[in-house]
């Protein structure tokens, strides 16, 4: 297969580099230095950093008891819980936000019980970030926990260790080894989060840098300041990425989370109760918002305005294109990366760019030539492909390496290249990771509320944007019905691609 995708891959890699460097270059060129920043913008940087730090710390701390319970206990439904922990990754952010509003909001379930939660402002931003990252941190911790060799636990049991001893000798060193990496991974995600800040933050004291870029664009149309802010966000991303290089941030992919190692230190009723409470509380926290959306959304489904259905159609089109383009680009990159190492690095470098930085840069690039607003959907598609590439590449790269190792020489000895190789070897052998990558890209694109908010006029709204607009006009029941539609779209796309690639 060597040589097959090389030229294509180099072309795609050049395209990815261009799609990153040109917008970033435009941002740097247009930025007017830190002087262009408004006084509130320093506050945005500060808020971005501290809310991300608090969110990461809370997610990690709360994940410890949940992961420990899942690591040391086999119980019916454990597999479902682990699956549930993976779901937020493809759950559209705006849907989760709406669910949190339905539970924690002023007229939500908690308020009905007499508990008040400051949902709008920092409280909501952090709550939503924990909602998304507690499951991620739990999965990563669980992965680490299950990597403890069973022999060590057996040794601990033979030495008569109690739970406290196991914690001290085995688990605490483990947490110290993987904890910082997981914390940083969550911190990174929280610094680039836009949709959460857009919907729950926004006041002078709860605006992130990403949100400030958006506001500078939409409200003030101050391109210079927006570019300066984008530069700030970029510095944040690059700085965090450099930090991540030193810390070995875990990936959360691959590695099975199936088995439970046999242990002897956890059989007291107290620990049993503690684990049960941890798992039940985590499930309640994750499921209640979804349940609330379902509860209030279903009755409103028949009343959805036609504009929402049109938006759903646009989202579907963008998502399908994004799925196909991402899978194709990732395949070309992966094939080229077999021989040219830096290409894989290009694919992952995308992570340092945030959607709003790319969006702002593309806006600046397009403006002299065309009306950027008219290109809202193509730009959204492009940014979504770029942002999905690292995940797609990570899913595809190991399979491509295996394929090259097992059948690369055979294909080369028969002179199989190009389309013949793709049809007879590449597609049949890589169908599953390609389907997974396409499903992931499709789900992420369908649920994305990022660049589209920056560019779109009401006539071009995607489904997440239409939902946001419904929320903005307090049409909550309709927003929840739209949320159901969006979840169905996202999960449906993921399942369709993923399942389709498994079928013979």
């Amino acid at each position: 297969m060597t040589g097959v995708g090389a030229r294509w891959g180099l072309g795609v890699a050049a395209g990815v580099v261009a799609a990153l460097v040109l917008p970033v270059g435009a941002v740097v060129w247009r930025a007017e230095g830190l002087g262009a920043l408004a006084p509130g913008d320093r506050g945005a940087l500060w808020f971005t950093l501290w809310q991300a730090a608090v969110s990461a710390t809370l997610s990690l701390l709360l994940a410890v008891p949940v992961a420990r319970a899942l690591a040391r206990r086999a119980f019916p439904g454990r597999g479902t819980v682990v699956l549930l922990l993976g779901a937020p990754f493809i759950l559209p952010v705006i849907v989760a936000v709406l669910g949190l509003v339905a539970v924690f909001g002023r007229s939500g379930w908690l308020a009905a019980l007499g508990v008040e939660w400051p949902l709008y402002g920092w409280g909501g931003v952090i709550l939503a970030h924990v909602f998304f990252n507690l499951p991620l941190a739990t999965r990563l911790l669980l992965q680490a926990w299950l990597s403890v060799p069973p022999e060590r636990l057996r040794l601990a049991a033979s030495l008569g260790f109690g739970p406290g001893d196991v914690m001290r000798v085995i688990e605490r060193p483990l947490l110290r080894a993987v904890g910082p990496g997981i914390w940083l991974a969550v911190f990174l995600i929280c610094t680039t989060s836009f949709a959460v800040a857009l919907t729950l933050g926004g006041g002078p004291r709860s605006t992130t840098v990403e949100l400030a870029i958006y506001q500078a664009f939409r409200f003030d149309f101050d391109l210079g300041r927006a570019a300066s802010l984008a530069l700030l966000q970029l510095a944040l991303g690059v700085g965090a990425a450099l930090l991540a290089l030193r810390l070995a941030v875990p990936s959360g992919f691959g590695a099975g989370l199936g088995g439970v190692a046999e242990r002897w230190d956890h059989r007291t009723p107290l620990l049993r109760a503690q684990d049960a409470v941890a798992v039940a509380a985590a499930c309640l926290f994750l499921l209640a918002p979804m349940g609330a959306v379902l509860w209030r959304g279903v009755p409103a489904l028949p009343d959805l305005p036609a504009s929402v259905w049109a938006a759903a159609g646009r989202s579907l089109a963008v998502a399908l294109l994004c799925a196909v383009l991402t899978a194709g680009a990732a395949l070309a990159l992966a094939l080229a990366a077999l021989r040219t190492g830096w290409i894989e690095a290009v694919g992952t470098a995308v992570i340092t760019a945030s959607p709003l930085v790319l969006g702002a840069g593309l806006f600046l690039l397009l403006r002299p030539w065309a009306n950027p607003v008219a290109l809202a959907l193509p730009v959204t598609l492009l940014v979504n492909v770029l942002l999905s590439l690292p995940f797609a590449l990570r899913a595809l790269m190991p399979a491509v390496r295996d394929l090259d190792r097992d059948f690369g020489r055979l294909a080369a000895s028969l002179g199989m290249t190009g389309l013949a190789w793709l049809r007879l070897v590449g597609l049949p052998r890589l169908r599953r990771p390609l389907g997974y990558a396409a499903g992931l890209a499709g789900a992420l694109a369908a649920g994305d509320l990022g660049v589209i908010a920056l560019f779109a006029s009401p006539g071009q709204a995607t489904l997440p944007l239409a939902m946001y607009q419904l929320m903005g006009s307090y049409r909550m029941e309709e927003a929840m019905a739209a949320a159901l539609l969006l979840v169905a779209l996202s999960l449906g796309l993921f399942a369709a691609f993923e399942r389709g690639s498994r079928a013979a």
Partner: protein
Amino acid sequence: MRLDLTLRRGGFALAADLTVPPGITAVMGASGSGKSTLLGGIAGFVPVAGRVEIGGAEVSGRAPGDRPLSILFQEENLFPHLDAATNVALGLRADARLDAAGRAARDAALARVGLEGLGERLPRDLSGGQRSRVALARALLRDRPWLLLDEPFAALGPALRAEMLDLVAETAAERGMGVLMVTHDPADAERIADHLLLVADGITHAPVDARAALADPPPALRAYLGA
């Protein structure tokens, strides 16, 4: 086939300056001596410094698929998701799209190796010996002047292996195809090889008559055989 080359891999180097005569030549040598590397160099998978001439043409710059040879590897000689007929068809066209004449040639090749009517089977539904036959049928259909065997039958039992070697010898003779086969078993060489080529201490010795050499081994071969 004329070789004048040096192969390097890490700290390992192997030199060859010799002519491989037509007929069947066995390549022998201790494990790690570079037998497979030599075949890889000829087939285009290991970069060589020097020349590889086949039929008077220098081929060391060509892609593996463009060289006038077929090669069977130790394992993974068939694509597991393609049926036997398609695997064989790849010998004629890399996109496996055959016209009527091509299909007839494909079926003839399958029949020649004794797999008539089994074309629709996937490799996993064939026995180890049958899989080897499919790979051989593909090489027959490719019809290139040389066939390189990098111990493709090593996993078969002795009786099956002898059967496959005989089939290789017969079909190669029919087609006038030269064969270069790696083996570590003198019995294999004795069974079908005309010549013997010893790889030892970073040097590829010039080929010698197989039967004579095995009957009265020169010192280097004697050291390898331990006789």
